[in-house]
């Protein structure tokens, strides 16, 4: 159940843009410790999905990836396609963004599950079937025997999420990456997804990377949270501490904009972007230095890292 830590070093991801390159991830170094859920939090354009997908080399061919990603003594960014195929699903599973769209609508769910078992599992026949049924039951499905003959469109989003998760777990991976599991779901489904992920993390895979813009979900699930803003890792810290006392001005603004806190927006850019901090143009606490110089990583408390001169 353990697996090793995933260590990302100096990751930069660029995509070709109209003129030159557009940088999606800007020199991020990050440890994803095994045995707990790490949340990668940020808004669209922050680079969180790009970072997550880069681990399994699932970015399109146009992406330019620089840096290293170490897992079990291998640099995944340099790994051959053959090795990657073994790692995907076998050691690191991905639960994709939209469960309804990740299932084949023309194939019964039972057959799709069997296919995955055949590809990854070491179990066959009755034994494999039993394993999947147990898995589905564990994920909170009442009568998993009945879903075999159903199609994905007959099921609710929450049910499909369970099926997709079960598929990811068939190969008994050590790690799991969940990409925006609650995007576009209503409150009821969102709660179901939360329970599925919680169930998995408690009973199957403890090492998980949760990519999300859903702060509440991250807060509920994650032991450690990393906040991204335009490709830069602005803050890291333990889940509950970070939520109790956010340090970076962007993180604070993000929390203030939660509906439960009265939706106080982060101000629109008030000044020109400088050479320095990415958040300089919107930061309410910006100093002259922030526009000139990039803040380094500071450690105001044990286990917390923040990229802001306020803590220099």
């Amino acid at each position, binding site marked *: 159940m353990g697996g090793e830590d995933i260590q990302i070093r100096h990751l930069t991801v660029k*995509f070709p843009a*109209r003129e030159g390159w557009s940088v*999606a991830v800007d020199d991020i170094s990050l440890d994803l410790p095994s045995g707990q859920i790490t949340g990668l939090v940020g808004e*669209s*354009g922050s680079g*969180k*999905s*790009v970072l997550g997908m880069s681990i399994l080399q699932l970015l399109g061919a146009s992406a330019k990836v620089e840096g290293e990603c170490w897992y079990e003594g291998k640099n995944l960014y340099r790994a051959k396609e053959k090795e990657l195929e073994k790692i995907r699903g076998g050691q690191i599973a991905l639960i994709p963004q939209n469960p309804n769209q990740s299932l084949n609508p023309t194939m019964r769910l039972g057959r799709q599950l069997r296919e995955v078992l055949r590809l990854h599992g070491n179990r066959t026949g009755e034994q494999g079937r039993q394993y999947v049924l147990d898995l589905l039951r564990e994920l909170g499905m009442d009568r998993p025997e009945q879903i075999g003959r159903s199609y994905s469109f007959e099921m609710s989003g929450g049910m499909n999420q369970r099926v997709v998760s079960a598929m990811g777990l068939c190969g008994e991976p050590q790690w799991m990456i969940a990409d925006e599991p609650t995007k576009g779901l209503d409150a009821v489904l969102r709660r179901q997804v939360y329970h599925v992920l919680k169930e998995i993390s408690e009973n199957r895979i403890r090492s998980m990377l949760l990519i999300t813009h859903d702060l509440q979900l991250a807060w509920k699930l994650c032991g450690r949270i990393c906040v991204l803003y335009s490709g830069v890792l602005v803050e890291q810290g333990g889940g509950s501490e970070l939520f109790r006392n956010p340090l970076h001005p962007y993180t604070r603004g993000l929390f203030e904009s939660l509906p439960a806190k009265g939706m106080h927006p982060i101000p629109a850019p008030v000044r020109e972007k400088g050479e320095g901090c990415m958040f300089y143009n919107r930061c309410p606490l910006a100093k002259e230095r922030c526009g000139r110089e990039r803040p380094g990583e500071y450690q105001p408390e044990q286990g917390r890292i923040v990229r802001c001169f306020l803590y220099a």
Partner: protein
Amino acid sequence: MRVRRSTWILIGILAILVGVSMLAPVLAPYEPNAIDMSRIQEGPSAAHWLGTDNLGRDVLSRVMYGGRQSMLLAVIATSCSLLLGMTVGVVAGYFGGFIDTCLTIVSNIFQGLPGTTLMIAIAGIMGGGIDSLLLSLVLTSWVSFSRLARGETMAVCGENFIEGERSVGAGSFRIIVRNVLPNIIGNLAVVFTTRVGRAVLSVASLSFLGLGLQPPTPDWGVMISDARGMFRSSPLLVIAPGACIFVLSMCVNLLGDALRDYMDVRSDAGFDK
């Protein structure tokens, strides 16, 4: 938007083919139909680069002239098909319901008819000639436009912005012209290009069968048809127009594919979505 080099090469070849055909009256060394019984089925020489045919006509000049009518016909016929198919498809897709059902049934009937056979039948019944050729080309190819146009229209109409237009009070005609057509025209253009390539082939095959353009018109299909008995003695008589048909239809088709690639790339859209 960057255009790949291979696409430029395609465009170049096409430009040469079209340019030579258009300028044939200036460029061709001989009259395409000038008979010279003293030089029959001669091989390539300095005077006749591609030799002469069984009536002593210069093959190079005939090849230069030979694309003019097939290309023109192919473009005209495909344009007519596009207009007809697009109108039917957009109307069916936009209004839906009973109109859609009727129009779809009609399209399905045409879809079910075997293309080449239908073309031969129409050309056969009406006799050879340009009008029957046009008619048969249009009747066999409009369905591909109407089906595509219908599907695309339905997809576009499912988007909120059409509902938004309607909520400000815009009428159907305005929405079709200003919102639906601009959004489907790109995909139709791709099919148009591919279809032109196919129409060139159809014109050539019908002419080859004696149902299209008639001799002595200098046309690639007609030329191959005329020369088919002489393939052993003078293979160039078949190979030269055949190569032209091949290169033209291949280039047009590849261009259609390239066009499709450029169409569906919103290259500078956001990446973290």
